C-alpha cells in the first residue's frame, strides 16, 4: 500500500488537472466566507468588536476560505455515486482499501486548489492590506497540526455519511442537513467568538468547531496559549470518535453491499 500511494497521488493530480475548469467552478461556489467578510467588515467599521477590527475580520475570513479549501473533502459524493452505480465493486477487488484511494484523490487535488485560490487571496490582500500579521511560531505550528486534524475529521464525517448510502437512498439528504449545521457551527459563516453567548457555549460541545474554526483562529493568532491546547485536545478526541464511527459504518455497510456481480 505504501508503494502504491505515490502513484495514486500522481493519478489524483492528473485527474484534477484534467478537470481543472470544473475544479475552478467548485472552488468558486464555496466562497461564502467572502460574502461574510464584506458584511462583518461593515459591522467592524463602526468600531472594533471585542478586539476585532476590520483587519482581524479580513484575516479571519481569508483564513477561513483557505483552510476550508485546503481541508475539504468530497468523498461523500464519490462514495454515494460508486455505491449506487456499482463502481465500488472493482475497487473492492483491488489489493488495497478503497478509502486509501479516496484519501489520495483528495490530497492530490490540494495543490491545484491552492493555485485557484491564489488570485482571490491576492485580491483580498490588496483590498485590506491591514490584515497582514506576524504569526508567532508556536501558533503557526499548532495551527498547521490542527488543520491536519480538521481535515481528518471532515474526511471521516464524509465517509460516515457516504457509507450510509449502503443502507439508505437518502444519505445525501442527511449529509446536507449535517452540512447546514456545520456551516452555522464551524465558524464558516460568522466568527464563533462573536456569536451570542448561549450559542457559543453550545458550540463548544459540538464537533463542528474542530473542523474549521480551531485551525483558523490558531493561524490568525486570535487564541491565547492556554485555550489553544484545550481546543487542539478537543480536535484529537473528535478525530478519534469520527474515525471510529467511519470505520464502523464502512465495515457494516460493505457487509451488506450487494452490487451487480458482488
Amino acid at each position: 500500500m505504501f508503494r502504491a500511494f505515490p502513484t495514486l497521488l500522481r493519478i489524483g493530480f492528473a485527474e484534477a488537472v484534467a478537470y481543472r475548469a470544473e475544479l475552478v467552478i467548485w472552488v468558486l461556489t464555496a466562497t461564502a466566507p467572502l460574502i461574510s467578510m464584506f458584511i462583518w467588515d461593515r459591522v467592524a467599521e463602526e468600531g472594533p468588536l471585542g478586539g476585532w477590527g476590520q483587519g482581524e475580520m479580513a484575516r479571519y475570513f481569508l483564513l477561513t476560505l483557505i483552510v476550508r479549501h485546503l481541508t475539504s473533502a468530497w468523498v461523500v459524493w464519490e462514495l454515494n455515486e460508486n455505491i449506487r452505480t456499482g463502481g465500488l465493486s472493482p475497487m473492492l477487488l483491488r489489493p488495497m482499501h478503497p478509502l486509501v484511494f479516496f484519501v489520495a484523490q483528495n490530497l492530490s487535488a490540494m495543490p491545484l486548489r491552492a493555485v485557484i485560490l491564489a488570485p482571490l487571496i491576492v485580491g483580498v490582500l490588496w483590498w485590506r492590506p491591514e490584515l497582514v500579521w506576524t504569526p508567532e511560531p508556536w501558533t503557526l505550528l499548532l495551527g498547521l497540526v490542527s488543520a491536519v486534524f480538521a481535515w481528518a475529521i471532515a474526511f471521516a464525517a464524509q465517509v460516515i455519511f457516504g457509507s450510509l448510502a449502503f443502507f439508505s437512498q437518502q444519505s445525501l439528504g442527511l449529509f446536507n442537513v449535517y452540512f447546514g449545521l456545520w456551516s452555522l457551527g464551524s465558524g464558516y459563516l460568522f466568527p464563533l467568538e462573536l456569536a451570542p453567548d448561549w450559542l457559543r457555549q453550545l458550540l463548544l460541545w459540538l464537533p463542528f468547531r474542530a473542523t474549521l474554526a480551531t485551525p483558523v483562529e490558531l493561524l490568525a493568532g486570535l487564541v491565547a496559549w492556554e485555550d489553544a491546547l484545550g481546543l487542539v485536545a478537543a480536535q484529537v478526541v473528535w478525530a478519534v470518535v469520527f474515525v471510529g464511527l467511519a470505520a464502523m459504518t464502512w465495515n457494516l455497510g460493505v457487509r451488506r453491499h450487494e452490487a451487480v456481480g458482488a
Partner: protein
Amino acid sequence: MSLGVSIAALMRASLLTTMRYRASFFGEVAMAVAWAFWTTVPLFVVFDQAPTLAGWTTEEALAVVGFFIIAQGVLEALVDPNLRAVVEHVRQGTFDFVLLKPIDAQLYVSLHRTEPLKLVHCVVGAGVVAYAAKAVDAGPVELLSATLLMFAGLTLLHSLWTVVVSSAFFFVKVDNLSWLIRAGLDAGRWPVSLYRGFVRFVLTFVLPIGLVTTYPALALRGELKPSTGLGAMVIAVLFAGVARIAWTQSLRRYSSASS
C-alpha cells in the same frame, strides 16, 4: 391553441408528477422550515453585535431574508429545474422534440419541468416577509409596491437564467455555471447597501440580486422612491427582452441532433 390552455396543461402535468410522491411533501415542509432557520441565524448574529447597520434594523433586514427565501424557492421550483433540463436536451439530442411541438419553445422549456413542491419555500419566505411587514408597520400601498417589485425581480432572475442557458447551444455543458451563479446570488440575503463599491455595483447591475431582495424590502419600509421602483420594473422588462433575443438568436445557431 391558446396560451392559457398550454400553460395550464404544463402546470397540471408537473403537479401530477409531484403528487406521485406524496410523502415527500412533509419532508419538503420540514426542509423549508429548517432552511429558513439556517438562513436567518447569521442575520441574528450580525444584528446582535450591531443593532442597526447602514440604516437597517433587524426586522427590516429580516424582510430582505424573506424575499431571498422566496426568490430561492422560485429558483428551485420554476427557474432552475426547467432551464437546466434544456442543457440536458441539447446534450442528448432530445431538444429536437421540443422544437417540434406546436408551442413557443421558450414558454415550453420554462415550464415543462416545474417542481411545485419547492414552492413550499415561497410560503415560508412569505411568512418571514409578513412578520417583517407587521414589524415595520407596512400599509397596503407599501405591500402592493413590494409585491410588484418582487415580481419584477423574479422576472429578472428568470431572464438571467435564460441567457445563461442560451449559451448551452454554444458551449453545451453549462449546468455547473448555474451553481456558480447561485453562489453569487447567495449575497442577496443581505441588504445590498451593506456592500461597498465594486461588489455593490455587481450585485445591483450584473447579478442583480439586490433588485430581487433589497428593493422589495425598501418598498416595504416605504423608503423606495417611486422613480427608483419604476426604474427597477423597466430594467426587468428590458432584461426579459434581452433574454428573448438571446434565446431566439441561439436557437438559430442550433443545428439539431440529426442533421
